[in-house]
C-alpha cells in the first residue's frame, strides 16, 4: 500500500518537473536586463563632446521635455544604421536627444557626426564606459526613453528600426 502511495507522490512530482522543463525549453537562456519599474535618471557629471566642459546631469535634463538618451560609437556598425532614424526623431519638438559617446576616439566620433548629421541637442563623452553603467547599459547601441517626470520608462537594446521608431513616437506624445 505504501509503495503505491509513494509511486503516486513521485508521479505527481515528476509530472510537475516535466512541465517545468518543457516550458523552460522555450525560454531563452541568454540574459538581457529588463526594466521592471520606472527608474530615476542617475545623477552624474560628464564632459560635453564639443566644449570639453563638465556638466551636471541635473542641468542636462532640466527642461520639461521628453528625453531620449542614445548610447553610440563611431566604431559601432548598427549605430550607423539607426542614425537616420535618430535624425528623424530629432525633428520632433516634444523630445530632446542626448547622445552618449561610448569608448570612442574623439576625432573619429566627430567625423561620424559630420558625415551622418547630429540629431543630439547635447553629446556627452563616456570614454571609460562608466557612465553607461550608471544607466544599466552593457553595449552599443542602447536607447533610453525618459518622460517628463524624469523617469526612465523604456529601454531598447540594439539598433532602432522603423517599428521601434513608431513605438517611440507614441510614447513621447
Amino acid at each position, binding site marked *: 500500500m505504501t*509503495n503505491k502511495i*509513494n*509511486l503516486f507522490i513521485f*508521479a505527481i512530482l*515528476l509530472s510537475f518537473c516535466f512541465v*517545468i522543463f518543457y516550458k*523552460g*525549453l*522555450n525560454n531563452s*537562456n541568454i540574459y538581457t536586463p529588463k526594466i521592471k519599474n520606472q527608474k530615476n535618471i542617475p545623477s552624474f557629471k560628464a564632459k560635453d563632446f564639443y566644449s570639453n566642459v563638465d556638466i551636471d546631469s541635473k542641468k542636462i535634463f532640466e527642461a520639461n521635455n521628453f528625453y531620449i538618451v542614445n548610447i553610440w560609437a563611431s566604431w559601432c556598425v548598427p549605430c550607423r544604421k539607426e542614425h537616420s532614424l535618430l535624425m528623424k526623431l530629432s525633428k520632433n519638438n516634444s523630445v530632446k536627444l542626448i547622445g552618449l559617446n561610448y569608448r570612442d576616439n574623439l576625432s573619429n566620433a566627430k567625423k561620424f557626426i559630420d558625415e551622418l548629421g547630429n540629431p543630439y541637442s547635447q553629446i556627452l563623452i563616456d570614454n571609460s564606459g562608466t557612465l553607461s553603467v550608471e544607466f544599466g547599459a552593457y553595449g552599443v547601441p542602447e536607447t533610453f526613453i525618459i518622460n517628463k517626470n524624469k523617469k526612465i520608462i523604456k529601454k531598447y537594446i540594439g539598433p532602432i528600426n522603423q517599428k521601434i521608431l513608431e513605438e517611440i513616437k507614441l510614447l513621447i506624445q
Partner: protein
Amino acid sequence: MLTNQTGYYSLILGLLLSFLLCGVSIKDFNSSSKTINKNILFLSFLQLVFVIVSFLSLILSFIKSDFSNETVFNNSHTTKPLFYKISGTWGNHEGSLLLWLLVLTLFIFLFLIKSRDQPKKYRNLTLLFQQIIISGFFLFVLMTSNPFNYLFPIPMEGLGLNPILQDPALAIHPPILYLGYVGTSIIFSSSLAAITQNYVSKEWGQHIKKWVLVSWIFLTIGIMLGSIWAYYELGWGGFWFWDPVENISLMPWLTLTALLHCILVLERRGLLTSWVVILSITTFTLSMCGTFLVRSGILNSVHTFANDPARGIFILIFLFILIFLSLGIFFLFNKEDNKNSSNFFWLSKEATILVNNWFMMYFLSVVLIGTVYPIFLDVIAAEKISVGPPFYHKLIAPFLGPFLLFMVFGTRLKWIRSKIENKNLLIIFFMISIILTYFLLKNITTDLLFYTILIAAALFLFFTTLKELFVKKLYNISQTTAHFGFSLFILAILFNSILSSEIITNIKIGERYYYNESEIFFEKIEEKKESNYNSIVGHFKITDEKGKVVKLKPELRVYNQPIVITSEADIKTTLLVDKFLAMNLVKGNEYFNIRYQVKPFMLWIWISVLLLSLGGLMGLLKKRI
C-alpha cells in the same frame, strides 16, 4: 559519399537489431531452457559491430575532410592537425551521440559475456532494459541528430572546430567520461532486472560490484581530465567553476560513490537493497538528465552544445519515460529488508555507510538544486537569477568537516556491532592535526576558524589513512588508498586556495614590473606560424623573492578558421607550485595585460584524484590477487 551511406545504414541496422533483440530476449525469457540463447550473444555482438562501423565511418569522413557530410562541414577544416580531425568526431553533438551508442552497445555485450554464471532470466531482462535505452538513442540520432546528412553542393572548406577544443586533454575527455557515466546504464538495467527477479542479494552484489567500480573509475578520471583541460586551456587558472555542465558530471559521481559504498554492504550483509536499486536508477537518470540539460539549450553555459529545442523535447520525453518506467518497477517489486539480518547496532559499519549516504545525498541535493533552480524560477516567476560558486561553497564547506570525521571513524568500525579500537592513537592523531593546523594557518589567513576545522579534519583523515598504509593492512588497501587520496585532495584544494596569489598588470616590451621583492621582466615578442594559426609568443623572465628565476612564454593565437583569438597561458609545473602566466592585448595600445598566478600544490590536486581512482582500481583487481 560511401562512408556516409555506410555510416547511416549501419545505424538503421543497429536500430532494427535493437528491436529484434528486445523480441528475442523476451522469447528467451519465457522459454524453458536453462541457458541463454546463443543467438542473443551473436546479435548483440553484431549490433556492436554496426555501431563501430558507423563510428569509424564518421571518423573516416573527418580524416578525409569530406565536406559533403554536414557534421564534418560544421566542425572541421582542412588545415586542422590530424589528431584533432579525429577527436573532432566526438567533439560535436551528433558525433558524441555515436559515442553514447558505442558505450551502450559495448557494455551490454561485455555484460553478456561476463555474466555467464548469472541466472538466465536476469540476464535476459538486463538485455531487454538496456535495449530499450539503446533503441531510444538510435531513434534520437536518426530522427533529430543524424551525423550523416548530405550537403549539396559540396563546400570546399569547413567551418572549423573551436580552437579551445583543440587540446589533448579535451580530446580524450569525452571517451573516458562516457565510459563512466554511460557505463552506468548497465547498472541501471541490471538493477531493474534484479529487482523484478527478487535477485537483489549478496550474490548479485558481488557480481555487479565490478561494473560499478569500472564506471566509477572512468567517471572520476573523466571529470579530472575536464578540470585539467579547463586549467591549462581556458586561461583563468581555475579548474572548477560550478558551471552547470560541470555540475552535471559531478552529480552521477556523487550517487555512484554512494552506490559503491552501498554495494559493499549488500555483498557482505545483503542489506540496503532499496538504496542500491534507487541509487542505480538515480545515477543513470542523472546522466540522462545531464544529456538533456546540456544539449537542449535550456541552460546558459560556456560548455553547451548548439541549442535545439526539438532535440530537447525528445530527450525530455525519453528521460521521463525511463524514470516512470524504472520507478514503477521499483515500487511494484520492492520488498523490505530481511528482518533478521537488518539487526545492526548503531555503532557499526552499516550505520556509518547509512550516514555516508545521508551526506552524499545532501551534497547531491545542493548541486542539483543549485543547477536546476534557475530554470524553475524562470518558468514560474519569470525571473532570472544566477547560482554560482558562493552558493555551493557556503552550503558544502561546513558539512565537509563532519564528513571527513565520519570517514575516519566509519572505516574503523566492524560490521553489525563494534566499538572504536585504538582510541588512544586516534586521540593522538586528532591532537596532532589540530595543533599542526593552528601553526600552519596562524600567519597565513584571516578566516582562521573556518579553515582550521576543515584542514584539521582533513589532516586527521590523512594521518589515520597514512598509518594504515604503513602498517600494510592489505585486505583494506583499496579503501585506504581511496580515502587517503580524498584527504589529500581536500588538503591540496584548501592550501591551494589559501596560498595562491595573483598579479594583474599592464606591461610594455622591455619593461620590468616590481612587486613584493619579485620582478617580472617582459623580454621580447616572438612570432610563430603553425598549420592553422599564427601566434605571438611573449618571453617573460620572472624572479621571485628568493632569487629563483622562471621563464614563461604565454601565447596569443590567431586561428584561421573560425577566426578566433585565444590566449594560451604558459604554466611551469613543479611538485610544490605552479607558476601561471597569461597574456592579453590591451586595445589600441602597445601594452599587454598580463595575469601572473602563483598556485601552490596544483599538481597534488591531480595526483590525489589519481590516487582516488587507484583505490578503485585496486578494489577491482583485489579478488584476483
